[in-house]
């Protein structure tokens, strides 16, 4: 491709490519995207061997062409994982992530029955740490980066959020077991602590979440 200004985003470069293809009467390349601000988790793409490309702490949609040199060849692939089948071109099916959440990623609570929001004080430290875990955008880069295709970082982020907050305590044991069982059932691999997931995570979800998940799981098993 020619004449791509450096302040073009990576996905705008893909738009330009697609416009060129359409102009030639060909089908454009299908890829997922929506917010283009790094928050919806819709964009994926393996760029030059890295999920979300070479930048750290950023999603593909937050990648700008000034990261690349004139004349570079850029390799773009879809997420590769048994649990994320390819739908078309660069678009994959991440429905398995929803299914893991459905297994237990919630507080069982009915609309309308809540007490006053300030009734239980929660320390700022706990709230901030829960927020850091809750920042996960569910993009799946962790799975794509992992040689085992494990979803542990994703899962541990949700489990940690609830483990750190009093609201999540009552169901903690059931939650961690149900979500892990679902993850295994869906064909994600095991975690062998290589840390590739956290290194590639665009939201800097920390490996310590996995440690916390393991503790929660052990606790749950012990009380079985």
């Amino acid at each position, binding site marked *: 491709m020619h004449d791509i200004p450096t302040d073009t985003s990576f996905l705008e470069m893909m738009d330009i490519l697609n416009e060129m293809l359409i102009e030639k009467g060909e089908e454009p390349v299908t890829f997922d995207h929506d*917010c283009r601000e790094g928050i919806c988790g819709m964009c994926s793409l393996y760029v030059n061997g890295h999920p979300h490309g070479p930048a750290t702490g950023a999603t593909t949609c937050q990648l700008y062409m000034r990261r690349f040199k004139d004349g570079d060849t850029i390799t773009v692939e879809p997420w590769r994982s048994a649990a994320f089948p390819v739908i078309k071109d660069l678009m994959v099916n991440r429905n398995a992530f929803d299914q893991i*959440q459905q297994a237990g990623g919630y*507080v069982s609570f009915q*609309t*309308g029955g809540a007490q006053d929001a300030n009734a239980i004080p929660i*320390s*700022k430290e706990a709230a901030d740490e829960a*927020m850091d875990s809750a920042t996960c955008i569910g993009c799946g880069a962790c799975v794509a980066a992992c040689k085992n295709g494990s979803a542990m970082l994703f899962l541990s982020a949700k489990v940690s959020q609830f483990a750190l907050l009093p609201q*999540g305590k009552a169901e903690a044991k059931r939650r961690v077991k149900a979500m892990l069982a679902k993850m295994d059932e869906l064909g994600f691999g095991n975690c062998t602590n290589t840390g590739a997931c956290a290194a590639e995570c665009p939201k800097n979800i920390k490996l310590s979440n996995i440690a916390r998940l393991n503790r929660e799981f052990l606790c749950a098993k012990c009380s079985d």
Partner: protein
Amino acid sequence: MEETKINAQPIDSKIPEGPIAEKWTNYKAHQKLVNPANKRKLDIIVVGTGLAGASAAATLGEMGFNVLNFCIQDSPRRAHSIAAQGGINAAKNYQNDGDSVYRLFYDTVKGGDYRAREANVYRLAEVSNNIIDQCVAQGVPFAREYGGLLANRSFGGAQVSRTFYAKGQTGQQLLLGAYSSLNRMIHAGKVKSYNRYEMHDVVIIDGRARGIIAKNLVTGKLERFAAHAVVIATGGYGNTYFLSTNAMGCNCSAAMACYRHGAYFANPAYVQIHPTCIPVHGDKQSKLTLMSESLRNDGRIWVPKNIEDAKKLQAGQIKGSDIPEEERDYYLERRYPAFGNLVPRDVASRAAKERCDKGYGVNNTGKAVFLDFSEAINRLGIDVIRQRYGNLFDMYEEITDVNPGELANEINGVKYYNPMMIYPAIHYTMGGIWVDYELQTSIKGLFAIGECNFSDHGANRLGASALMQGLADGYFVLPYTIQNYLSDQITVPHFSTDSPEFDAAEKKVQKNLDDLMAIQGKRSVDSIHKELGNVMWDYVGMARTKESLETALKKLKELRKEFETNLFIPGTQEGMNVELDKAFRLRDFITMGELIAYDALNRHESCGGHFREEHQTEEGEAKRDDENFFYVACWKYNGNDETAPTLIKEPLHYEGLASEGRSCHGWL
């Protein structure tokens, strides 16, 4: 040009009896309910999984209804609500600064420039507190103080601190909360979730909404879904302007489908333009990025005093930091000394346009102004400023390659840091499908919630109030009001989709798609959409005139012709075809664009987000005309997209508040 017709037909907004503060309580006490055993006999379709759709689907599921829930993304969690940054309002008065339900109600009505329906707004303020309780119970990690209680900030210039937030990701955390409740109901089998499905039409049987035709975006096949009621929660129409802060997939097709069936569309001209967005850099740009409004707390907005300096900036010969203090025009501080850089969004936006139109723009396109932190950094130190805005500075740098916290120059002992460049962009749409107090559209059994309805914000929305409205509608209003409709539907058995009405609806949708594929012209969807965006921005944008709007309508007519005769969609209807999906939405954006222009043309006044140059004060402020325009403009479809719609007026009645003039000297 086609004349719009005016219809004197009265409109029933079903506002309950009683004093404003008691209406909702009275309503709930007297509405009809559906008993638990009967709820499972009733099916409800909820289209959309944003804050409004997800909260409604989850709550209706918890109540025992069978819910079918649709979204176009690959997961409910990716709805556009996820991108909201700043926060959500509630009248908790945790800060003891004098907030109350009444004050939130008052601020919202006033912020909406007295064009909202009072009773709806009061209810919104009333349930706002329940939302915060609800979200905390779900485990939403709101920001907290050291004492462990919830933190608040003031937002959009409100006099009280009533905004709750989760870092700069409030929408994300609220949506993930609603998504978790939704997941619980999906797990329980009460909600069935359809991802990558796009509603193409609503099916009406005997005058009632009874189902939808949706396209499975992966297989490309049309599918039929039946239910006792249909709820539309499909978000706003900001992408009519092509460039906006909305996500790429935001669209108005579901709303347009309802409109074509006769649901009124209310106040389309009310669109909100956000003053602090990263400026357009070129014609390849796909969307605009919002920079949080909080930046205006410490940032000062300026352009050069001298036009020569502006020209040099435009030519790239000098930088902002080369211009010393005395040569800068802090035009907001100059024009509005009491509010300075914190004037309301529409005032800040128009003031930026005014300077740029006069030639004082500061980038290569001439459409940008500076937002400068030098004074704040010199006063407080870079560390304090980075603590407040560090993530926004980083985001700005990632996009533009300029670090706003970086020391760039020193003139006469004064340190100048790189300023940001900003420009207004389309952000939110106050108009939407008309609904009554029960959130029911003018079609029975068809409800609209969240940004896609018109209900609560009048002519302008306050910051942090969209999230509040979406969740109020979904958790606390619709689940009650829909029962009033459903209570006499319990004897109606589950619907079959094998009916002549479903056959006809599917056939019509299929024909539309066939027609689009058959055009086989030369132009891509995006190229036509960009042209639409330019027409809308130039002629139906921040400042409108009779002439500009008439020009817009003429150009839109031509554009529709171009679309219908020269569009090119590659591929086939088999499987996924993104271009076809975009074309389907573009067709509706064109009709939407016309609707905005018709409404703007009709409204000979300036109010909120709608500014008619003919109607302004000497200081250039919006001038309302309460005598002639104290009404909701409801537009009724006239059988085809080419014919102008008919205007029906819903007069406004204020009991709780008297309408006052607005001036920035006393406003906020």
